[in-house]
């Protein structure tokens, strides 16, 4: 009964061909639209992301050099040198190894913070849109307060306070460890992205909550939680997924912006952002050091943007709501 009400909805395509619409709750239906053909470009984008994410995950076991170990016998090697496939930097560190380890830092930040933002923002937005009334007023105004900061500035403030460099009494400068920086950046950027995800989820949940099949479910005596999670949420997911994909692209760029203010992963550990910025005063000395991560950021951001757009077009997420 509940399933049969679904095809009337514009997002009914979400579940076409699936054994039960409710499956959409558990897994993001990526396979679904692959089957129906999303075009060669989307496949290339997915392939690229699998490659990049795969390399980032496998970084510890790949046969690559130590990313922080200099080698003064082969500094500033050009691209495709015998020992440095993607060249080396001013102190002979291997660029290939640094971009792979850098991918780990950059993607961890980008995907981690958006996942956090989607989880919390999605839950709050769903609640606000579904419940309406006072719940909605309180939640929506708190989103607006966070949105009153420009995102980059709020992220800068949070990271500089919770993971800035500090001096101890003996005068040595302490730079927070790799993992502390990463965690703080993920949480800070996650907080920044909560209201964005929440607003889109709220707008969609509000629209879907008024539909006939929701009323039908209520008439059958379904509880609030059941209606929210099993009727409304599956229909809101495509919009969330679309924004989340765009969000990962935005945060990937944001990581580099934080690096410019010295607040991303700290040297000597690499991230794509700090590799680009590290060479700014000396662009010609070892060009691969900043060109390679620049190309990687561009290609990966492009892939996420494109997939976000594919999802949006497929599920007819209204742009005005974004």
């Amino acid at each position, binding site marked *: 009964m509940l399933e049969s009400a679904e095809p009337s909805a514009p997002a009914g395509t979400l579940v076409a061909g699936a054994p039960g619409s409710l499956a959409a709750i558990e897994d993001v239906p990526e396979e679904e639209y692959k089957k129906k053909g999303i075009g060669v470009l989307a496949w290339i984008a997915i392939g690229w992301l699998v490659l990049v994410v795969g390399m980032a995950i496998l970084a510890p076991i790949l046969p690559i050099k130590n990313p922080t170990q200099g080698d003064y016998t082969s500094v500033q090697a050009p691209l495709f040198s015998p020992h440095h496939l993607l060249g080396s930097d001013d102190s002979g560190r291997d660029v290939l190894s640094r971009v792979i380890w850098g991918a780990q830092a950059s993607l961890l930040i980008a995907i981690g913070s958006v996942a956090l933002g989607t989880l919390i923002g999605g839950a709050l937005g769903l609640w606000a849109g579904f419940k309406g009334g006072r719940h909605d007023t309180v939640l929506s105004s708190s989103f*607006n*307060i966070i949105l*009153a*900061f*420009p*995102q*980059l*500035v709020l992220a*800068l*403030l*949070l990271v*500089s*306070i*919770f993971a*800035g*460099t*500090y*001096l*101890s*009494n*003996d*005068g040595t400068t302490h730079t927070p460890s790799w993992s502390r920086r990463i965690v703080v950046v993920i949480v800070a950027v996650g907080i920044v992205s909560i209201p964005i995800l929440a607003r889109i989820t709220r707008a969609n949940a509000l629209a879907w909550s008024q539909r006939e099949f929701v009323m039908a479910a209520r008439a059958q005596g379904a509880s609030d939680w059941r209606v929210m999670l099993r009727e409304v949420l599956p229909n809101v997911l495509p919009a969330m997924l679309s924004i989340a994909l765009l969000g990962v*692209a935005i945060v990937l*760029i944001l990581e*580099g*912006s934080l690096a*410019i*203010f*010295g*607040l991303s992963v700290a040297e000597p550990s690499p991230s794509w*952002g700090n590799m*680009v*910025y590290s060479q*700014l005063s000396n*662009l*010609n000395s070892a*060009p691969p050091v*900043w060109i390679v991560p*620049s190309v990687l*950021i*561009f290609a990966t*951001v*492009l892939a996420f*943007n*494109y997939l976000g*757009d594919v999802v949006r077009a497929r599920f007819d997420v209204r*742009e005005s709501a974004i």
Partner: protein
Amino acid sequence: MRTIVRRAVQLIVVVIVVTFLTSILTSFLRGDPVTTIAPYSSAQQRQEIRDQLGLNQNVVERYVKWLGHFATGDLGHEYAGTGVTGLSISSQVKTSLPHSLLLIFYVETLTLLLAVPLGVYTAYRAGKASDNVANAVGFGLVSIPVYVAATVMILIFSVNSWGIHLPSEGWVSLTSNPAQHFSHLAMPVIAIAIGQIAIYARLLRSDMVATLQEDFILMAKSKGISNRRILWRHALRPSSLTLVTIAGLNIGALISGALIVEVIFHLNGLGSVLQDAINRRQYVAIQDYVAVIAVVYVLINFAVDALYRILDPRIRSARIG
């Protein structure tokens, strides 16, 4: 009129909440804030910093005091040591804020000058090859981070001077030397504008494609009005609202972009002084700069909202917020 007053009250509330949150955050500094700021300090110096940060008072007291100073334009001084007056934060803001605002103004102007014709043209050619090419290029441009665009341009025009040479650092004021002023700002402005142009053109296109299917356009066509006149007079006018909406949505990206290029090109804007304060752990200054940026952001949003009301009589009285 009543809505304007209401918006102004909202504006003040948002400013208060934003600055209060900023000042609370400062109290979360790791360990003893005084040690963080000045490790080698003597007991007397520590006391001075404590007084300056207001660490002996509670959060609310400290905030009220800070707000009083902030409202009167007195942002205090950076910490520089006993008996030494540090950089005046107000004077830093006074020199850097106009740089940032001018930069934002140039970016917005360039964006509108290029994106509007581009959006109108691609909407007119919707579905044709030239539209598809423009769409694909636009997608690529949106994906270029500001700092990558800036770095590539510095390599091309400053380091190697292919074609023309452009200076890659420093700010020259408009009044002292207009030519130098614009040559110094060319790369920073273009670096931010690239992505903005692509976003504006794309959204304007999709809006105009919808408008072009309306009955009044068909009517205009049937009256034999030329395509050019229909596009620019009939179809673009309703989209002016969309442009304002897009501008509103992109203020954040615009300010972030400005902060980033100010650091890269040493333009001595708010971004530069903020980065400097972060590097020297001047937390009093960081708090002030962040508050200034947040207030600017809120004010620009307010202006965009007012513009929206002027353009569309329907929402002047009806919808609030």
